[in-house]
């Protein structure tokens, strides 16, 4: 059964179409929404969490319509917004107990201890949040979201601005939650993370979904390997079986290929045949970045100045 379904989900901000007829179906999995800043990821999450009304189309979470059955939706979900919001004058524990009580969970104190323990914050729980690092704050927000047992967890850029170690930790927790049967719907613009941890991803650009599938599947669609050759001389046309010339950049040629080892040999032969001097030749596996470039084009930052990020930076110092 699908946990999240959207049909033609659309949202306008005045004339700007931030989300453009999006169809999604998400089951029990870690589902990642990928895209550059301003692609419409947060807007989708806000509609799914009943914070924004769709301009058109509809969306259901756990079988409940996000507009008509908003309260039922809220009972089934937890949501960690992109912008961190914690009361720094309260302790970590107080921040979590507040949410436990607002969710109306029985034994709020015990559940709080559990959640804090789960996220490795038990020993610092009685300190003011003012003294927490960025990673701890994010984990504290996860603890707030996990004091009740949601069926769906929405995470909007959960690892934004965190260091590598903190990001790993967040992902470990997310993975453990999925093992327990929770659906996790998250957004990120870190392709490598999505590649490693998401069961399925959707790539979104300017409000439109341009690709959807498992990371492996999407990478397979464009070829499993990327071969980069740095040469001098004027390259001619290439017609090698199973190899596609992706782009020519100065004296760098980038190819997509199904099998890296075979392609490497074939390409090197062809380059020599064309009389080009090869300076370097390398092969690597395709990444989601490559998929993104293929499906969308250059990931230039199309968003205007993003006030919320600026504020976030200021607060994190």
């Amino acid at each position, binding site marked *: 059964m699908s946990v999240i379904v959207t049909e033609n989900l659309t949202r306008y901000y005045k004339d700007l179409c931030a989300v453009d007829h999006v169809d999604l179906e998400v089951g029990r999995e870690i589902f990642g929404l990928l895209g550059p800043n301003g692609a419409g990821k947060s807007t989708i999450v806000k509609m799914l969490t009943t*914070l924004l009304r769709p301009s058109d189309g509809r969306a259901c979470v756990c079988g409940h319509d996000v507009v008509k059955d908003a309260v039922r939706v*809220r009972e089934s979900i937890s949501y960690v917004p992109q912008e961190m919001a914690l009361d720094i*004058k*309260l302790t970590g524990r107080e921040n979590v107990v507040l*949410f436990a009580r*607002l*969710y109306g969970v029985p034994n709020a104190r015990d559940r709080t201890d559990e959640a804090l323990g789960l996220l490795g914050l038990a020993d610092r729980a009685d300190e003011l949040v003012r003294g927490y690092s960025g990673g701890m704050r994010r984990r504290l927000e996860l603890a707030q979201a996990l004091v009740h047992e949601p069926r769906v967890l929405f995470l909007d850029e959960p690892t934004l601005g965190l260091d590598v170690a903190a990001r790993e930790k967040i992902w470990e927790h997310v993975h453990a939650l999925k093992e327990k049967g929770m659906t996790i719907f998250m957004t990120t613009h870190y392709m490598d993370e999505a590649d490693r941890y998401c069961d399925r991803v959707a790539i979104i650009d300017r409000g439109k979904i341009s690709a959807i599938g498992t990371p492996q599947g999407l990478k397979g669609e464009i070829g499993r390997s990327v071969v980069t050759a740095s040469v001098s001389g004027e390259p001619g046309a290439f017609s090698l079986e199973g190899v596609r010339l992706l782009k020519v950049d100065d004296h760098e040629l980038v190819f997509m290929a199904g099998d890296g080892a075979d392609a490497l040999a074939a390409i090197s032969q062809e380059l020599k045949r064309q009389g080009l001097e090869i300076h370097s030749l390398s092969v690597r596996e395709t990444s989601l970045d490559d998929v993104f470039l293929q499906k969308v084009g250059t990931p230039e930052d199309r968003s205007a100045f993003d006030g919320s990020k600026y504020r976030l930076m200021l607060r994190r110092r």
Partner: protein
Amino acid sequence: MKSVYEYFLRDLKKWLRGRVFVLTALIMPAAWLVFVGMALPTRFTDNYVGFITPGILVMTMLFSSFQGGSLMIFDKVLGFMNKFLALPSPRESILFGKIAFITFRGLLQATVILALAVLLGVRLPGIAELVFIYLTLGVFGVLGAATATTIALKVDDHDGYAAVNSMISMPLFFASSALMPYRDMPEWLRVLASMNPVSFATDTVRSMFSGTIEIGGIAVLAVLGLIVLGVSTYMFRQATV
């Protein structure tokens, strides 16, 4: 309605932990009483401190309520509302929590004023009248806090709210019977003042001080309060970010 208490407690704790704010919140209205009551050159009545004490009490509730709207602005701007609005607890409990805290804080300030007024020679009325004074101030505070919090829900940022705040609370205060008796007002002001909720509250409190329990004013304020609460509740249920 347990969640109302939780929201109330959150604001209370945050307030108490910013000690400086607690102090200034209590001193500011006290300063008004001393400066306006003692130092103002014009005196409309013989016992001016006695006359304006009810006015300053109501003013304290008014300003405190409208200043309280900025709590909602903070919660919005800092992203707390994103979290709260996605919770299963009734959304209007966010509103009621704010009203409870803002009114509670206002009544604390009013108590400081009252104590100071006694030091300045104002005679307290009987216990029944005193209870009614608090009741009037409380109802008026709820009316103000609900209005302010709901306006804040619709305003984008601090600057916008500050503008709305000064545009509403200052005129309401000056166009009321808080500072001068009706008989000394010019005609146009008398008309405005007699329709002003601030005057209803002030007149009621004033009558309590002179020993007559008059509940007409409370009733009007309560009806106004209920209307505003109804509208505000609806707006919180429908709120989007």
